[in-house]
């Protein structure tokens, strides 16, 4: 079993990371507006802000998985008796794990293919670095799902 303190630390690190990402995204947009108004638009602004949004999406998804915040339809499964719910719960977790394993594997393949490519506007940032968000966050989501399965199970079995 995983200790409560490691889950807590994991939770905390994810929170710090999301917080910083949100602040950096705001700064990027504000700096972008200021430069545009001054007549010296930043060429990298759109591309970098888009990447930051993708990072918030996937690292935020890892946090949302840990807290069970993803949008679902939790009432539907309650129509089944508890024995069947147990089986369906296991199937649902296997499907989620498989999906993110596929994303990890093919996300890594994409990184390998993109080796040597850089961003269009900032040629010192490798594409493989920014796109690493898919395999990296997929692994984190799998970890989050693993850490939160007990609570998810309780919710599924609750009437």
């Amino acid at each position: 079993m995983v200790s409560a303190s490691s889950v807590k630390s994991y939770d905390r690190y994810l929170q710090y990371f999301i917080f910083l990402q949100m602040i950096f995204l705001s700064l990027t947009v504000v700096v972008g507006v200021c430069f545009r108004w001054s007549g010296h638009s930043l060429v990298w602004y759109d591309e970098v802000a888009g990447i930051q949004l993708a990072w918030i999406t996937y690292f935020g998804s890892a946090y949302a998985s840990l807290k069970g915040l993803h949008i679902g339809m939790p009432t539907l499964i309650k129509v089944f008796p508890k024995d069947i719910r147990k089986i369906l719960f296991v199937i649902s977790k296997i499907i989620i794990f498989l999906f993110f394993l596929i994303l990890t594997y093919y996300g890594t393949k994409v990184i390998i293919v993109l080796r040597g490519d850089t961003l269009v506007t900032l040629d010192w940032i490798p594409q493989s670095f920014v796109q690493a968000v898919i395999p990296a966050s997929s692994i984190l989501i799998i970890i989050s799902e693993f850490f939160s399965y007990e609570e998810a199970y309780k919710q599924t079995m609750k009437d």
Partner: protein
Amino acid sequence: MLVLLLFSVLLFLLFINIPIAISIAVATIVAMVAKTGPQYLVNTALAMYNGAKSFPLIAIPLFILAGAIMNSSGISRRLIAFASALVGFIKGGLSMITIATSMFFAEISGSAVADASALGSILIPAMKEKGYSPEYAASVVSSASSLAIIIPPSIPMILYAVIAGCSVEQLFVAGFVPGFLGGFLMMAVSYIYAKRKNLPIEESFNLKNLKRTTKEAALAFTLPIIILGGIFGGFVTATEGAGLAVVAALVIAFIYKEFNLKQFFDATVEGGSQTATVMLLVASSMLLGEFLTVEQIPQKIALSLTTLTQNKYLILAILNIFLFIIGFFLHSAAAIILVVPVVMPLINSLGIDPVHFGIIVTLNLAIGQQTPPVASVLAVACSIAKTDMWAASKVNVIFVAVLIFILLLSTYVPIVPMSLVEYFYR
């Protein structure tokens, strides 16, 4: 056949409580792999990445962040005090204050759930203390909070505009009249309710008090001017306006000296995770979108419906009923992502203005936020009021009726939402 496979898998996954975003992605992958083979899987990782980096959608986390700062900085308290001085003397004063504050909040925040949580935590306990039933307190907070997605800025509007390929700014402008009309009608309904239930006034009208609270909240009033004035005046795009909203809210928060850093940190993280849940849906809808395009499903639906009737008002009635029904079961972001790409070819072929249809969709989503079992905003208000969602729904019918009236008015009298759009943009 592939369509049947996709929707059967999707339904099964939703039934076993797999998050909607993952269900959409997995169902699409199954259908596409069945069609093209496992080589399709490489595309999955690329599409999921590209789907999450749409520039106009950056406005979503920024508006959420601006709302989070506002809620952590004493702005809410000042606005409530101002609304109390302005409308607290009317029978059922606290419900009037709730609706008036929500209308103001709506001009800064674009998320109804955030508003329900921020206002509800202050106003619901106050209402309960004054003898309002918890069901009514939850209903008035919940319905008034849904004005946040009708009055600009609005997160569902941003999402719709990106998916439908129409102007966010025009959609924002179109939300003004239906939003404020809805707010004033809710006030009228709550007045009648308060008269019947003999609910108390909050405070007697006092011009001195109104002046004082106006002065205290004056800085907060500049927020909508900066955000909406900037966007409508063409100085900034919706995304840049959202960035400015963050800065303006921060500046005001520091001036008010009530900034709670811990609350801000928590609200920002919550905003980040809210963004993530919506954006993961957007990313997975990229996969679904590719499938729909390949199979030409939207075009086929458009063709079969237009062979039945060419009457756009009848089609809008059908779509309204459809959107109303799915509002019972789907979260607003999921509803937009699943429905809008499918019906847009139909809307375009009938010559319906996508901005007009965007308002119709938004109003349906606002109603959907109030109708259980999936009623995101009502659920938040009920958890604060510690009451059952179904019991609150019985009371909430009066406010849902207002929203339905605004929906029908906006659908069949297009000038209601479109008058300001025509004036400013056409």
